[in-house]
């Protein structure tokens, strides 16, 4: 574990000594909970319709696929007309697009960002690297199956998929959400131990709490 994450006594600028335990002070390590539907079906359907019409994407490009987002968010393909927009922080977004290959180092940041997002949240795997490793199938440093580490709602195949394919993917995701099948956050909470075991298998220096939000 890194030195800055260890429990230690710190002297403040005013000479006052206090104890700092970063892993417990800065994170909450309560496990995630499954959120069952709270209302009758017709109200849930209305909620799902509203959710599907406001897909907010976390602006986190993990690999080369991030370059496809730029024409998508600018006037040429203009995804904003479908209610899709990009947000700067995980707290404001509900869709995580894993855009391309995911190295082990990035996976660690992706897990932290994903867990910080508010439920209900969705994950799209973009490009063949997220499906089976793609051209990095024998690489020592990229994961091969994204759904081992995060609950994936939808894959968009291609290397790289064009922005049109992403627009079609958003439409498909909307159908999934409207049908009430966008349950990624609940699947993650239900199979939390399995996901954590998979994540820890590849991330050798696990220096964060199991659930950080």
């Amino acid at each position, binding site marked *: 574990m890194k030195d800055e994450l260890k429990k230690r006594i710190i002297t403040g600028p005013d000479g006052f000594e206090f104890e700092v335990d970063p892993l417990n002070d800065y994170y909450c390590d309560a496990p995630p909970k499954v959120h069952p539907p709270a209302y009758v079906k017709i109200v849930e359907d209305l909620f799902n319709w509203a959710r599907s019409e406001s897909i907010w994407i976390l602006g986190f490009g993990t690999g080369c696929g991030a370059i496809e987002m730029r024409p998508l968010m600018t006037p040429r393909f203009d995804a904003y007309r479908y209610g899709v927009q990009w947000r700067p922080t995980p707290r404001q977004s509900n869709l995580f697009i894993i855009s391309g290959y995911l*190295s*082990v*180092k990035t996976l*660690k940041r992706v897990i932290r960002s994903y867990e910080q997002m508010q439920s209900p949240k969705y994950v799209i795997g973009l490009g063949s690297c997220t*499906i*089976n*490793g793609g051209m990095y*199938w*024998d*690489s*020592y*440093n990229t*994961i*091969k*199956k994204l759904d*081992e580490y995060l609950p994936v709602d939808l894959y968009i195949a291609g290397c790289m998929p064009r922005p049109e394919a992403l627009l079609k993917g958003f439409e498909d995701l909307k159908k999934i959400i409207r049908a009430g099948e966008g349950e990624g956050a609940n699947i993650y909470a239900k199979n939390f131990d399995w996901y954590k075991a*998979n994540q820890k*298998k*590849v*991330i*050798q*220096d696990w220096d964060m709490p199991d659930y950080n939000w």
Partner: protein
Amino acid sequence: MRTLYAELNKRFPLGELTVQREDLGFITVEREHLRALLLHLRDLEGFTHLVLLTAVDWMEEGIFQLTYLLSDRKKRRDLGLRVMIARDGASMETVHDVWPTAATYQRELCEMFGIDFPDSPGVHDPFILEGWTDIPPYRREFDTKKYADETFTHRAGRETNDPAEYMKKQLYPDGA
């Protein structure tokens, strides 16, 4: 490039010269002359920056080849210096005080090839790999496919049907 080589050869014992292009050459040098040569090229010959520092693993010969590629913007020429070091317990003198950019390259080489550069700032900090426990991945004895198979789960491949086999099965199901 040949005039520069002749010029340098008066002051330093140099090895083989490879002229790749009129403006790009490589010279093999001994490791103890490297620092003096780098200083000479920077201060007297006017080379303006270190383009890259990289390594080649000659596993069969038991050596690492370090290549220091220098560029001279004004005279539009590039010169690479090749230094051969032993592969076992590979270690090399740092040149970050001559070219500050070298510190980053040395950090990368330390991680990917396991070449140590004592006194180079932050050389042992993780660079790309975090918590790496295996042998450095750019060493040629590292089997990347074997490592990937052991570490990561692979998705099963798709099913394919050979047309001839498939039709045979359709038309003659009892294998006649």
